């Protein structure tokens, strides 16, 4: 121990003065550098920050949370909204099928999704991407999501892709905090108030079904869909993942998904896979159906078929 552990007490030297000056300037620089953090408002209240995982909320807790979200939406976006937390119905497992022979690639479904689910306006976000494919190949690599011409084009067919609500969802497995899970009615959901935004699920999903909120979503108050679900279309916070939920705030109340209602050709078939008399069951039994990337073992509950 050749050096003293404290500076020698011989009055203030020039060196000490320089050090003091340096330390002061250094602290000021730190304060200045980190100043933007003071403008960061990740949560509106302490209750928001301390909110428990969705599955741990009691009925009373949940009621308080929903009211708080409604209040915060009013404050931040100036819109009066009703946020509900509809539970899955027993005996229901949702499935979706899409008729590739009929789809004309008009992207009405993607547009309806954009509005229904309160997506960010500037980025024109939607849970649905429509690929224009060339006849003779199902190779996604030959698809094009950026076509810009009247549809349907000659020798093309169209393939809308959204969350496949897999029975073995890789996105759920990888989440480090259980912020995403598969509900009993088959829908994979995200607790937007629990997600930490690591985007591992986005890397794990083979269908490009997940979206990240790179910034705070912007929607004019007049365009906000006020009928909202906690696990579905309420306005998402900045920095969390989101995804298609088959419009569970509609479908759990007996309605159809917005993308289906918007489809002008009737290419989309939605229903309860557990109901033997449902239309979706009829399609699965009578059409030649396939799923995307079957070899990955994800067991999609979204099916494609051709009429002919």
């Amino acid at each position, binding site marked *: 121990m050749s050096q003293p552990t404290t500076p020698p007490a011989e009055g203030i030297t020039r060196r000490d003065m320089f050090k003091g000056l340096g330390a002061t300037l250094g602290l000021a620089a730190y304060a200045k*550098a980190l100043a933007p953090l003071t403008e960061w408002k990740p949560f509106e209240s302490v209750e928001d920050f301390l909110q428990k*995982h969705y599955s741990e909320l009691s009925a009373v807790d949940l009621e308080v949370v929903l009211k708080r979200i409604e209040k915060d939406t009013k404050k931040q976006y100036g819109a009066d909204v009703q946020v509900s937390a509809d539970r899955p119905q027993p005996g229901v497992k949702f499935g979706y099928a899409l008729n590739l022979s009929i789809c004309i690639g008009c992207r009405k479904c993607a547009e309806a999704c954009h509005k229904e689910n309160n997506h960010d306006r500037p980025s024109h976000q939607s849970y649905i991407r429509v690929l224009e494919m060339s006849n003779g190949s199902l190779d996604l690599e030959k698809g094009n999501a950026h076509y810009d011409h009247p549809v349907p084009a000659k020798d093309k067919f169209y393939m809308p892709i959204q969350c496949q609500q897999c029975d073995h969802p*890789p996105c759920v497995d990888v989440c*480090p905090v259980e912020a995403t899970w598969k509900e009993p009615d088959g829908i994979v959901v995200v607790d937007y108030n629990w997600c*930490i935004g690591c985007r591992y699920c986005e890397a794990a999903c083979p269908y490009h079904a997940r979206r990240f909120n790179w910034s705070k979503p912007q929607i004019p108050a007049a365009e906000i869909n006020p009928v909202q679900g906690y696990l579905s279309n309420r306005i998402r916070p900045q920095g969390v993942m989101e995804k298609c939920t088959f419009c569970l705030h509609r479908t759990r109340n007996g309605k159809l998904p917005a993308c289906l209602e918007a489809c002008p050709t009737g290419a989309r078939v939605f229903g309860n896979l557990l109901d033997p008399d449902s239309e979706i069951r009829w399609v699965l039994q009578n059409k030649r159906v396939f799923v995307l990337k079957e070899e990955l073992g994800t067991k999609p509950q979204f099916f494609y078929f051709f009429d002919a």
Partner: protein
Amino acid sequence: MPESATTVPSGAAEFWRQYPRFLARVLWEAFDGSRLFYAWMTLLTAVFLVGANAWAVQVRDGLAVTAMSDHVSWGLYIANFTFLVGLAAGGVMMVIPAYLYHDEEMHDVVIIGELLAVAAIVMAIMFVTVDLGRPDRFWHLIPPFGRFNFPVSMLTWDVLVLNGYLLLNLHICGYLLYMRFIGRKPNPKWYVPFVFLSIVWAISIHTVTAFLYCGLGGRPFWNTALLAPRFLASAFVSGPAFIIIAIQIVRRVIHSDFGEGPIRTLLNIMRVTILINLLMVGSEVFVEFYTGGSHTSAAHYLYFGLHGHNALVPWIWSSVVMTVIAAGLLLSPRAVADRRLLNLACVLAFAGIWIEKGMGLIIPGFIPSTLHEVVEYLPSVMEWKITAGIWALGFMIYTVAIKVTINVMGAGRRHFSVLPPEA
């Protein structure tokens, strides 16, 4: 450092009595030194502050300030994270010869590798943290308040092994240094088992980090069993490369000539590992390009560009050229005698692997996307600032740690081993 009071049954109070003074000394060492030290630390602080400011803006405005997108959803941060986990694991290549083969000279410098592991892990953890969309929700990971998706999520494994490795190395370095500080002989019981554990643990951190990527069936570029072995081989190049340079800098600062033997040992290790790494890269390239098919489009994009998009092509070819030149230089007999040649080889190997295991590994995993769209990615200025800031902080931690070690053990000593000679 983290041991409990029960570690020394006879006079635990006596053992801990000087601990506050030890901490004060460490703090003092961090803020006092020569003019060169001040200049270096001021420069690093300035770079760190630029990064801290960029991060504060990113947290406020969202990750939209980065160049990442829903197509390329991980970028420069996760690339650096992956590389740094390797650097941390590579630090252990000092420990294996020292303890497994009783290399006496290696004992003298083994702490240089262990402190590198500490600095690299801290940086790796910071890179993951700045990548989070919601750092305020970090506590969601921590039981019992949070929900830890263990053992299903590989990310939870990574959290455990990285923090475990950090604690292990802090304990080993902290214990040995403190014993030296109070002038007592270290008790092998309190560090040797941890040293052996750290060897196994070093392998585990990089294996688990590889499993993060190669376990994803939807990303064919990563979905290869060769990924974990490749990670280890490249880690055992970049780690020794850094340490060879670090030894020489420390030597110059304290006017000593220790470390010749360790440098030769590390050179010998690199001669093997750099070839194994090249062999594995070549093997992957063969499988990708000979087989063909749509699964190879990511490799095609990386090496030759795809549909006119070729942002990564200059990166990966610089990496290939640097690694091949480094391998040639290392294998040349002159590398043993000619320090400039060796240093050049180390710098080239380090930079080559930083690209190969960083941008060259992470980005092609996302290009083309899972729906086969090609959306390119090059880091934004904000990402570069934050990245530089974290590296600056890592260098600060490493500088102070090495300085404390040297001074606690007495400057000007020929060796600065923290171990007694017979250990």
